[in-house]
């Protein structure tokens, strides 16, 4: 097996090259760079609204771009679109499969999507002619559960799956445009860059990957976590990526320096991170944990500056509205809460 041995050697060489190249640019650390920056003052957010209506665990939520509507998915088999200001349910959509794990709101506000153990991504048209919300497309090709989905537009959506791949779909034809393969474990989460040119995925192989949507390639791979990555998001300027893991930490990776800048951890936190969202300026990182709390971190100083305690079970999802005015948390206790 001469070729196999050569390939293995070349792979090891390349990995060493990458490690070296990352060290070469490490002229300082983020920790040193922010030594002179003052820690953010204690952040105390209050629950302003509680969205009641789901009858079982909530697994996902996503804000609409209009900043007052959001969609949530629960294993009671429903997608609910909420007006977060009035707490009214704008739509309550019954699902064919109640084993839903993710949901998404299209940037246009015209559609929502969801999926889960049915291995499919179902697209619903909210603005149908007769006012009824119907399934528009069922995107089927994944051979594992749908863990996350995000719309690029009304005609394209990206999904991540337990089959270790992500797929870019053409919604109109219901077919796969691009399959992004490379992860060695279930893909758990994805996030699209602010300019819509890239997306990142976090997986059970403990790595995060940056993908070029149009070139259909993996540009970079980030390691360091010691367990599954459950949550992932972009820093608001698109130049850095934040991950949350079962290893109880969140990490910040810079895309242009191609390396981890800092880890958000505390000896008192021993449970997994389920979800995360940055505040509008990127200075705050809100992360949901298995211990029913949300911890608020100063993203630059990597210290905890607040806690949101209010749920009676695991916080499974979190999102900050696009104008930064509010944070929404969803929980296994069946409620969503709006905080600011």
């Amino acid at each position: 097996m001469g070729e196999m041995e050569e390939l293995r050697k070349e792979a090891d060489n390349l990995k060493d090259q990458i490690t070296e190249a990352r060290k070469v640019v490490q002229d300082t650390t983020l920790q040193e760079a922010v030594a002179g920056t003052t820690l953010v003052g204690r952040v105390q957010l209050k629950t302003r609204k509680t969205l009641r209506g789901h009858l079982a665990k909530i697994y996902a939520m996503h804000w609409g771009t209009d900043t007052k509507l959001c969609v949530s998915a629960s294993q009671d088999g429903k997608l609910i679109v909420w007006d977060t200001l009035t707490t009214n349910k704008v739509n309550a959509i019954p699902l064919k499969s109640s084993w839903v794990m993710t949901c998404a709101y299209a940037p246009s506000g015209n559609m929502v999507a969801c999926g889960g153990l049915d291995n499919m991504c179902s697209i619903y048209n909210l603005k149908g002619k007769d006012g009824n919300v119907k399934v528009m497309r069922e995107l089927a090709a994944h051979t594992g559960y749908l863990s996350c989905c995000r719309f690029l537009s009304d005609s394209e959506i990206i999904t991540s799956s337990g089959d270790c791949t992500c797929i870019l779909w053409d919604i109109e034809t219901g077919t796969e445009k691009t399959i992004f393969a490379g992860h060695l474990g279930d893909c758990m989460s994805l996030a699209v860059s602010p300019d819509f040119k890239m997306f990142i995925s976090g997986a059970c192989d403990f790595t995060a990957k940056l993908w070029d949507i149009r070139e259909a390639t993996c540009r970079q791979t980030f390691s360091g976590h010691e367990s599954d990555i459950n949550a992932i998001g972009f820093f608001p300027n698109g130049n850095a990526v934040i991950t949350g893991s079962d290893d109880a930490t969140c990490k910040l990776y810079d895309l242009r320096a191609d390396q981890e800048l800092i880890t958000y951890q505390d000896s008192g936190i021993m449970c997994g991170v389920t979800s995360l969202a940055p505040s509008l300026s990127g200075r705050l990182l809100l992360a949901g944990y298995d211990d029913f709390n949300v911890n608020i971190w100063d993203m630059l100083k990597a210290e905890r500056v607040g806690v949101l305690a209010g749920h009676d079970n695991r916080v499974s999802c979190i999102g900050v509205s696009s104008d930064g005015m509010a944070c929404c948390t969803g929980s296994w206790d069946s409620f969503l809460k709006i905080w600011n």
Partner: protein
Amino acid sequence: MSSKMQSSNNIAHARRTVQQLRIEASIERIKVSKASADLMHYCGEHAKYDPLLMGIPASENPFKDKKPCTIL
């Protein structure tokens, strides 16, 4: 699967891995000092527009329930 198929699958996988590592090794990297400075600058520039960071006055908070006023 015959062992020949298995080993050619393994070789194909190893080739793909090397191919991918070549792509990742060849990217341009900026210094951590510059990356950190840019993040700090972005946070600094946008802090005043960040409601969760700055706090929201009650009168401007659309989520805060307005208490009824009584005119005495």
